[in-house]
């Protein structure tokens, strides 16, 4: 209807208006899904909070009177106008540390999520499409990666390499792609049996063409939802790893490392402990809600409203 009025307003003839009266602007799949996501209130609020947190973590340090490494103020100061979150044992500003830790934790979590999703999707899609020997070998590879506890093998590798943030992220990614590979494989198995894939194959399309043009676009919902979930999993794993002292080390930092530095002070100087704790929870909660919103947007059948 909006279209029809617009045409007349543009000065089109009455006949034109009649002809276009029932035209509906074709909405792409993307805009439908985006529309559903935007209407998901909790997910939008979460997205806003997460973006705000990231912006604050990046921008605010420029306006702080202290550099994150500045130790000139003396250790364990109580919060004041100068040091909103006090200082830690070495005299570093608590807020500057917290914001820097948030930067690193977010960087680690997102790079782990992106790289493990790419690897997992490729492995899963190829295994599910080709089946047979390739499928069997790839899935046995997944089994192999799953038999050792992730945190233990990552700790060993990070300790052997250097404890900088990108090494931690890379090693974590190497041991986080298996779950998404399994999920994608299941979906690729069922998609590969559908007619449009068969038609494409009959037309002479190669494996990679089918994987990239037919399988992955049809699994994009599952992939995005699982990618978001792997962000929050990565935040928590990184925190655990750094907490036992086998993750990120100075000069890099992370929220887990800050918790580890300050957890003995939880009773005496709670502000040093609760800051990074709440930051981790906030990142993890908002990402879960965003994942929820995405799931509902991609697959309206799964909404929480009873059918």
């Amino acid at each position, binding site marked *: 209807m909006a279209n029809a009025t617009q045409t007349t307003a543009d000065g089109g003839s009455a006949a034109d208006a009649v002809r276009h009266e029932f035209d509906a602007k074709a909405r792409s799949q993307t805009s439908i899904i985006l529309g559903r996501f935007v209407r998901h209130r909790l997910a939008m609020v979460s997205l806003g909070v997460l973006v705000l947190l990231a912006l604050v973590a990046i921008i605010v340090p420029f306006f702080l009177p202290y550099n994150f490494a500045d130790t000139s103020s003396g250790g364990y100061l109580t919060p004041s106008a100068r040091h909103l979150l006090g200082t830690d044992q070495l005299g570093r500003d608590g807020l500057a540390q917290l914001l820097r830790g948030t930067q690193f934790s977010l960087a680690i979590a997102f790079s782990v999520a992106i790289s493990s999703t790419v690897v997992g999707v490729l492995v899963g899609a190829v295994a599910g499409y080709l089946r047979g020997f390739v499928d069997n070998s790839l899935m*046995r590879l997944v*089994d*192999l990666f*799953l*038999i*050792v*506890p*992730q*945190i*233990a*093998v990552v*700790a*060993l*590798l990070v*300790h*052997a390499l250097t404890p900088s943030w990108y090494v931690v992220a890379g090693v974590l990614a190497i041991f986080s792609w298996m779950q998404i590979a399994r999920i994608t494989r299941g979906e690729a198995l069922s998609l590969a049996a559908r007619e449009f894939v068969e038609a494409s194959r009959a037309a002479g399309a190669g494996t990679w063409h089918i994987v990239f043009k037919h399988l992955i676009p049809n699994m994009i919902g599952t992939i995005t939802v699982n990618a978001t979930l792997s962000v*929050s999993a990565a935040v*928590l*794993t990184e*925190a*655990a790893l750094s*907490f*036992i*002292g*086998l993750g990120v080390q100075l000069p890099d930092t992370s929220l*887990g490392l800050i*918790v*580890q530095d300050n*957890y003995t002070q*939880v*009773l005496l100087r709670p502000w040093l*402990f609760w800051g990074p*704790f709440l930051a*981790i*929870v906030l990142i*993890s*909660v908002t990402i*879960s809600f965003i994942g929820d919103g995405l799931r509902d947007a991609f697959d309206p059948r799964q909404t929480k409203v*009873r059918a």
Partner: protein
Amino acid sequence: MFQYLIRRLLISIPILLIGSFLVFILVASAGDPLAALRTKPGVTAAQIHSLSVQLGLDQPIFIRYWNWLTGFLTGNWGTSVALGEAQAPVYDTITNALWVTLRLVIGAELLALVLGVAVGVFSAVRQYSIFDYIMTSVAFLMFSMPIACVAVVVKNYGIQFNDLLVSLHLHRWLQTAGPPATGFGNNLGQVIVNYSGTFLLPTISLMTISFAAYSRFQRASMLETLNADYVRTARAKGLSQARVIFRHAMRNALIPVSTLFALNIGAIIGGAIITERVFGWNGMGTVLVKSVGNYDPPTLMGWFAVTATVVVAFNLISDLLYGLLDPRIRLG
């Protein structure tokens, strides 16, 4: 069923062998066990050489793996090479630590399972009630909390509780730094008090994440069975609400959850590492952190071999359990 079991066992063996070989390469290339000696004054090159021959470091990796594997299978797991560990036999270290961790984990997991199932069933039966919303939020929050922080917070509330007891002229009840060195006491009352005081805090912090997973899982599967046709039939027959829920719906809804425990074992080990660290228990987690820090390959290999075997065994149990509990699934 029996055939399936045999086949799965036969698949598990090569996976464990290849996995342990890869882990062996990883552990062997992760450092130099003699690094500390090389820089130590007064240690000659000849001594270093004889030590590396003694440890088999001069041999090709395949032979070293073979020696480790045959040793491991015959109960000779080697001795620690870390300085200050005084040649501790790996077998003793690992089995002691495993026992400590199992005592901690099994209780916590069972409690989390029972509570999670109860909450999940109730949430599903009263879907969209206030209780359901509260438990959903609680589970969401628990999923999002780093276990390290949970353990720290629980521990400190424990310390404050102890201080409160002391201020009331009572004995400290909760243990916040490992199990009591002197044992749990002589008479039954003492044992109960000490035992509960020792296990309460680490159990709570271990439970949080598992509880969240079990309650969500149970709620989802319970909702599915409550909407199933046979439950409607049961209601139509005029059975009481309790009978429908517990006999017809819940029994079937328990199937997926019972396998979750087995599949979750890797994550549970990860959680135990952190909890042990905070509460000062000398379990598998402490052994791992120590032997990664000291770079102690024999202990690391023992650790990985034992946990990998546990993970593979539990995966197998979960598959078998599913087949046993759900006759619609035919294993074969």
